[in-house]
């Protein structure tokens, strides 16, 4: 809890400077300090877990243990996906950790294609750890660096609050199609992490919105619940079913929930008086 206190102190200064104009008279700038401090802890915990999980994952890759590495792929990514709006603030690292083949001109063959999806390609498409060693080392170095940068980061309130919607935009734009984890089809793990990350932000600021607009809060939680119920159908002992198991109907249910959450959460910043 020491961390929290320190953060709160630094955020007080920040809040006073960055949050002068509040559209919503009921939300005072200082009201956001605690939720943002709590979110910082959430992000830090996930970044640390990402480092620990990536260590085990990349060790398996380097040891040539294809099966073990495959089984760890989905769960290792979850800590990254949950805090993606913050991780994305470092675009150099986001590119090297989480870019997809189609972000690169030469696709899978492009030397710039590194990170999770490059290793995923080797493991699942080529069923091998051959030549993956350097990618494993690079990924490990990148997530370690990410963790370090996050520790030093002062979270901009509008990025935090806006992050709830950003996560939904990510799912809506590229994940709902199953393009993200195209070799492993572990997309439902990513979904789960994205939704949890978005819900965390929403839950933290929820008390601030609730008094003004309880209908909004009910609607948004209802949609998060709908997503949870739908994803729960695909839960397995150690994670989630592969993406191709998702029925067309459930995919539509998820797509509609994502689109609705994206619409609703896009107003969250404004509701809290953030620009």
């Amino acid at each position, binding site marked *: 809890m020491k961390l929290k206190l320190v953060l709160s102190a630094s955020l007080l200064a920040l809040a006073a400077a960055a949050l002068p104009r509040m559209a919503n008279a009921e939300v005072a700038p200082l009201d956001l300090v605690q939720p943002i401090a709590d979110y910082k802890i959430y992000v830090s915990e996930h970044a640390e877990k990402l480092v620990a999980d990536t260590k085990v994952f990349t060790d398996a890759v380097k040891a040539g243990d294809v099966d073990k590495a495959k089984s760890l792929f989905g769960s290792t990514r979850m800590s990254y996906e949950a805090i993606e709006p913050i991780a994305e603030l470092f675009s150099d690292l986001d590119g090297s950790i989480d870019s997809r083949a189609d972000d690169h001109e030469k696709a899978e063959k492009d030397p710039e294609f590194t990170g999770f999806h490059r290793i995923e390609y080797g493991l699942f498409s080529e069923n091998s750890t051959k030549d993956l060693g350097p990618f494993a080392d690079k990924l490990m170095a990148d997530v370690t660096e990410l963790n370090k940068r996050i520790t030093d980061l002062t979270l901009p309130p509008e990025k935090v609050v806006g992050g709830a919607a950003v996560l939904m935009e990510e799912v809506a734009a590229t994940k709902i199609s199953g393009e993200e984890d195209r070799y492993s089809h572990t997309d439902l793990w990513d979904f789960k992490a994205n939704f949890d990350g978005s819900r965390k932000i929403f839950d933290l600021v929820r008390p601030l919105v609730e008094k003004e607009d309880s209908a909004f809060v009910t609607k948004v939680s209802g949609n998060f619940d709908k997503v949870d119920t739908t994803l729960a159908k695909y839960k397995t002992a150690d994670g989630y079913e592969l993406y191709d198991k998702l029925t067309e109907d459930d995919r539509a249910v998820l797509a509609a929930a994502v*689109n609705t959450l994206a619409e609703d959460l896009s107003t969250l910043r*404004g509701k809290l008086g953030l620009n």
Partner: protein
Amino acid sequence: MTTNDNKLVTTRRNVLFGVGAAGSALTTGLTTARAAEKQGGQVTDAPVSDKTQERQSFYGLHQAGIVTPRPAAGMIASFHVLAKTPADVERLFRTLSSRIAFLMQGGTPPELDDKLPPADSGLLGPVIPPDNLTITVSLGSSFFDDRYWLAPHKPARLSRMKAFRNDALDADLCHGDLALQISSNTPDTNIHALRDVLKNLPDLMVLRWKQEGSVPVLPPKPDGTHESARNFLGFRDGSANPDANNAALMDKIVWVPENGAEPAWTRGGSYQAVRIIRNFVERWDRTPLGEQERIIGRKKATGAPHGGGSTEHDVPDYSKDPEGTITPLDAHIRLANFRTQASEANLILRRPFNYSNGVSKSGQLEQGLLFICYQADLEKGFITVQRQLDGEPLEEYIKPIGGGFFFTPPGPQDESDFVGRTLLEAAGHDVVRKS
């Protein structure tokens, strides 16, 4: 909006812009976008059109966009519908209707706090012009099949489209619970409307596929007559369409009649068949003119039938040509309409758009016809005609890749009404007419 308003707007526009007889511009559906001729215009000045205030009425026994003259830009968008309960389906129909009413009327969207996303995409500016927009709502077979309480009320002829002989259907371009046909003077107006609907109904509808299309614009003819636009094979398309201004004919061909096999709620509605038909245009352009004309059964330049006619409105007489020496027996128009007394039961009203989607993997143009037709009986109409066409020589140049069958419910009577109300009432759902 009422017909009176409509006249008023038209008349005022005519006064302002000196368009000919009142209402004529409205019925031609032509868009004559005139570039600003003013000296000193800038490269990025907006092209100018005097048609942006053209307006169609959303209200009436029939939905707009069926016998409405086809404007320059069209789109079909197909959706997966999430509304399952009567209450949700009612909310879907009501919201859809109120958005359509607003968009077809035009107006100013609400202004929100600038810390919030704006209510409107803004792509048509702060005041939305009607621009001759129509949005026609239609329901697919699955809309009824997947809702047990609606299944007994499914239109008698509605089925899920099955592949015909020449089809190579792409599952991602087929079917849907609900289809919107959006047409207006410009593609931008259609896109604006689609984005508005998506933004307002994210929890009840998910977009599955869409296809946009266009109709080539012609200059007005000095004598005030009209001619059919051309499709991407370079032939006039629509010459032999039944006269959409003949209400009695439309009652026979297009609208579901009061008495018959159909449930009563469908009265005033129509069946919509949509087909995305790719044209192999490079190959077509390398085909001798005479062969092209034999395949279609008409002259390319004029659109006249073979055997002496001079205009597209001349009518071929197959009784004098039983061997097909004038119009080949397997010509497109001859197979599509035998022109016998019996074949009158198979007439359809076509309302297609040309589409162009980029380049195929083989480096050929991905373009073709967004074929849309309406009929009172899907079996006797599209399905029968397409079966007659199966095996036609034109097949070498076309490949149907998508589409679906839908039922277009009757229109809303007035502002207190909404599309789909008669269906909900038939299903025993209490609907309150709000005014």
